């Protein structure tokens, strides 16, 4: 009996060994459970510097930032899609490349959009749009026919684009957007470039994570090193290599 079990194990042993990738870093990575995804979402949202933009933006998380915390990317995508279909979060195109999606909770999103247009003549239209369209259909983009069915004509769409709630995707198709997101995008692109440059200039193009956290942040990284590191690791621009003295960050192409 014991011999049989040993042989059985032997059949499975290489499979089990190869299927599990080596765990990166010291702490155990959370699995792909919905709870882990939501915890990661909260963690990254807590890193978002709200004061930097005069509290005009809701806590904005990029989808790939979650991949640095949850190793199972498929679980992240599926759970975010589930949350989007339930209407708890919105996915936004930020103009950072077609594959970069921003994740924002629905309630803070509505609040900040209304705050941004408060006092302007478009406020009524934007409120109507948020109540009728955004609440009703959780898609990323809106088609012309769909908007017309919801009671928004061409002039209304022009006003909404001017207010920054919609951006043009294609002829007769618009992405949902966040007003005033340009300041975030500028800070984000600069921060990303600053942090990547720091790693690229260092010896062997690698930096220990602990050293990077202790060091004074480079001047461009106003969004915070932690927030930007999640982005670079999730977008696979940096790789985290486990070493005896903590994780080492290395440029992905080397």
């Amino acid at each position, binding site marked *: 009996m014991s011999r*049989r079990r040993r042989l059985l194990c032997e059949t499975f042993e290489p499979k089990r060994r190869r299927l599990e990738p080596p765990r990166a870093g010291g702490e155990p990575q959370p699995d792909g459970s919905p709870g882990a995804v939501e915890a990661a979402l909260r963690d990254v949202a807590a890193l978002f510097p709200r004061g930097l933009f005069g509290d005009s933006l809701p806590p904005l998380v990029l989808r790939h930032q979650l991949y640095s915390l949850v190793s199972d990317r498929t679980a992240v995508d599926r759970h975010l899609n589930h949350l989007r279909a339930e209407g708890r979060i919105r996915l936004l195109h930020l103009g950072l490349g077609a594959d970069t999606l921003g994740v924002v909770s629905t309630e803070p999103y509505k609040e900040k959009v209304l705050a941004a247009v408060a006092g302007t003549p478009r406020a009524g239209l934007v409120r109507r749009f948020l109540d009728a369209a955004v609440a009703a259909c959780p898609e990323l983009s809106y088609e012309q026919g*769909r908007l017309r069915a919801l009671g928004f004509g061409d002039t209304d769409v022009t006003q909404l684009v001017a207010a920054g709630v919609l951006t043009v995707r294609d002829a007769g198709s618009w992405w949902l957007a966040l007003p005033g997101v340009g300041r975030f995008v500028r800070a984000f692109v600069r921060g990303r470039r600053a942090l990547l440059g720091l790693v690229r200039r260092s010896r062997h193009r690698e930096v220990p994570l602990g050293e990077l956290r202790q060091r004074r942040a480079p001047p461009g990284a106003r969004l915070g090193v932690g927030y930007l590191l999640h982005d670079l690791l999730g977008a696979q621009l940096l790789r985290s290599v486990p070493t005896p003295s903590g994780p080492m960050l290395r440029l992905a192409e080397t």
Partner: protein
Amino acid sequence: MLGFIAARQTGLDDPVRLRRVESTRRVLSLELNKDRDVERIHGSGINTLDIEPVEGRYMLSGGSDGVIVLYDLENLSRNPSYTCKALCSVGRSHPDVHRFSVETVQWYPHDTGMFTSSSFDKTLKIWDTNTLQPADVFHFEGTVYSHHMSPVATKHCLIAVGTKSPKVQLCDLKSGSCSHILQGHRQEVLAVSWSPRQEYILATASADSRVKLWDVRRASGCLTTFDQHNGEKSKASSEAANTAHNGRVNGLCYTNDGLYLLTIGTDDRMRLWNSSTGENTLVNYGKVCNKSRKGLKFTISCGCNPEFAFVPYGSTIAVYTIFTGQLITMLRGHYSTVDCCVFQPNFQELYSGGKDCNILAWIPALREPVPDDISEKSLPQQHLNPAYEDAWSSSDDEG
């Protein structure tokens, strides 16, 4: 292993279970084997490989200098080290050789007497394997990127051809002429593939970042255009904006049961689609590096329990599980970009060709022999590949 055999004998297990477990184990232990070589004939990069589905014994390769070579993969020599012999080839001196790079070769799915090849010289040739003469030649207006013949068709004999023009053409082997044109793409068509489940369903991938499903019996247009965001269905207006990728889509592969479709694009993403509903299953494979300007030939394993996809990734081949998107391993061995790979389902072997002119054979590693003292003494390097033999001699002996 013995446990599985016993369970199968006593009827506790399904008969396919042992086979599935063992083939999964073998696929997971694929490695570059020092006993298996493929004869080097090509003088330039290898664009395409195909193994015939009847016996799994003969392999075709197409090179970027227009040469087509036929290999015998089976080792009948009873010797563990084996070089796959080139049985015959359509070389540069052949009168009917393709003038430019061969992009796709495919065996006739039901018989080894015939194969097809398409090339950048704007032709698709139907070859007779025994005489190595073209039986028929189709001419097109643009360079041909890809063609495919349905593996399950019994009612038609159509070859789908993706060329530089945005129209997909269907060539009928019975009449020897182009019978249909499928319109809908806006740029060149880089990959075409028939469904292995329904004989009239065709999937095409194009440089306009769209993947379309067609029913070739339907004249009015495509069935669906895949949408990466799973947007609104059944809207003619929204179809126009649907994209499957954010770059050129240059690879297409159905799973063996035909229920899912894998696509790969130059946005460094691979996506898995439900082929009946056209829904994005949201499996995220991470970054799948893809710099190819032409079509990319990747493949899917057959008969394993989590099925695996073998995808050229720069100069390596990445192995992913299809339904979870996990990267299992990278197969390193080529010196330059890998362009194609093909899976041999009977022995779970993988063959890959690249720009370094080599075809590499990835063979499952044998189990380690149980170490006991008899075997160690009696088998001193009985079958060692001559390349690994020690050719060094000490100067004292010669002295």
